């Protein structure tokens, strides 16, 4: 079923906020979908596309691709937090699914965008993927490494890469991360790519921060950056080159 893209009103955002607050302290399987049926909580927006409210997205990439094609050049909608709060309610079953009888609500910025604060903005479970996708508009497939997870769970790899704008938008950084951590056959992160040990995405970011003191990372190519990584990344590099798998802790 399709419906016209809309925005939550101030009242609607307040109700969603209250819902999240209660749900966080008293988890249940309740849904905020009633907000969409209250005329005081929803307002239409001009020139809005139709969206498929029943669509199921296999991963964040698929959602970003869908929204990118729907929104096209309506870039002003990216800056409208109330639209993304409305979309959160529409797709709430996917951004906060019922697991073992309850919905585990996490920090508010995942559901209501914190515009003006990139560190929190990327955490929004719907707007974050679209930002990452559009940052690589020349080759959106490149963004898949940040968007491989399901809507409700970005994963450690995405969290690390998307925490800083200059990292998220850097082609060489994202290409190297894809080569190291993304399984090209499944399109999913490789085993061990969510850890915190040697060679992990967290260590990758630490090394990038060190290299940034000496190199202009934006000027490097993928192969130049890859060659600068220390040996601890060999276990992922070996796999990337089709070498023998080494045990992953």
């Amino acid at each position, binding site marked *: 079923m399709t419906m016209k893209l809309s925005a939550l009103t101030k009242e609607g955002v307040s109700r969603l906020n209250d819902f999240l607050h209660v749900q966080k302290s008293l988890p249940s399987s309740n849904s905020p979908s009633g907000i969409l049926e209250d005329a005081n909580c929803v307002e239409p927006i001009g020139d809005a596309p139709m969206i498929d409210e029943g669509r199921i997205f296999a991963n964040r990439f698929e959602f970003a691709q869908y929204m990118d094609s729907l929104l096209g050049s309506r870039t002003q909608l990216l800056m409208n937090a109330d639209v993304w709060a409305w979309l959160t309610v529409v797709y709430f079953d996917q951004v906060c699914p019922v697991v073992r009888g309850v919905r585990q609500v996490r920090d508010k910025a995942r559901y209501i965008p914190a515009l*003006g604060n990139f560190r929190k903005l990327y955490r929004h479970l719907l707007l974050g993927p679209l930002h990452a996708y559009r940052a690589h508009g020349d080759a959106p497939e490149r963004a898949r490494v940040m968007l491989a997870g399901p809507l409700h769970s970005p994963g450690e790899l995405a969290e690390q890469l998307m925490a800083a704008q200059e990292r998220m938008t850097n082609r060489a950084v994202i290409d190297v991360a894809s080569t190291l951590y993304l399984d090209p056959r499944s399109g999913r992160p490789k085993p061990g790519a969510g850890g915190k040990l040697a060679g992990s995405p967290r260590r990758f970011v630490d090394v990038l921060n060190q290299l940034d003191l*000496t*190199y*202009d*990372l934006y000027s*490097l190519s993928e192969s130049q950056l890859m060659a600068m990584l220390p040996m601890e990344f060999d276990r992922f590099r070996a796999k990337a080159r089709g070498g023998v798998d080494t045990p992953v802790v």
Partner: protein
Amino acid sequence: MPRRFNFTKRKRIRRKDIRIRICQSTSGELSFDADLDLSSYGFESLEVPPVVYVEARRSATSTWKRFPFGTTEKISPPPDRSLAEFGVPNGVLFSVRVTSISSEQPGVLLAEADGVRPLMPGETELPAQPLIEHIPAKDLGSELWRLDFSGEMPLLKINDSVPMGPDQFLTDATFRALFAPAVMRQVLTRIIVIEQTGVDEDGDSDWQQRWLRFGSKLAGSNAPKYSTSDDLVDVEDWVDAAVEAFAERAGLLRTFESDA
């Protein structure tokens, strides 16, 4: 204070060689102009002229944008220097990076300047380096203000939704009397207890040293060192003395009484 190794002999670009101004159109859109003089760093002797980038950044919001400025041989600002993503000019700092594109040293930083303060719209000269920056913020929920220490200096975030507006909240003497001592106490405690930064007689550029000197003048003595929780009483006494002296000199109680 932070120290960096410099194995690649990266040069520091002097502030006098950089002049950056943030401009605001009548419709409120932000952009910037930059005048760079890189003629005295010896880049002309390099076979391949290095490339120049200017980056704008606001650490508290992690907003960042990069602009190619040509080469050291021919500096050419891009036509689009919009800073629309930053919303307001407050808290925006710039970096200038000179990068090698030679095959021997690809991507090596040859020179840089970090944390360059721009002239703000309406300013003709850079004011004295402030102790704190401020910015209207949308992410404070029901809090009126919050300090952010993630950037190059403390940032006072004022809730964008305060009824009188962030600017009036900051400048109104009555409101200042209420929040300024708390801000000062939090900054000094952060420096001494959390960051455990001590007085460095040579450190004149980082914000921690400037705050410690400010506090020392007010308290009449240098800040005590914090090593263990046993030192906490001394630290609290020193911070109290500095904040009390500040409140006295600024006449906060008198201001509050006359406005009440």
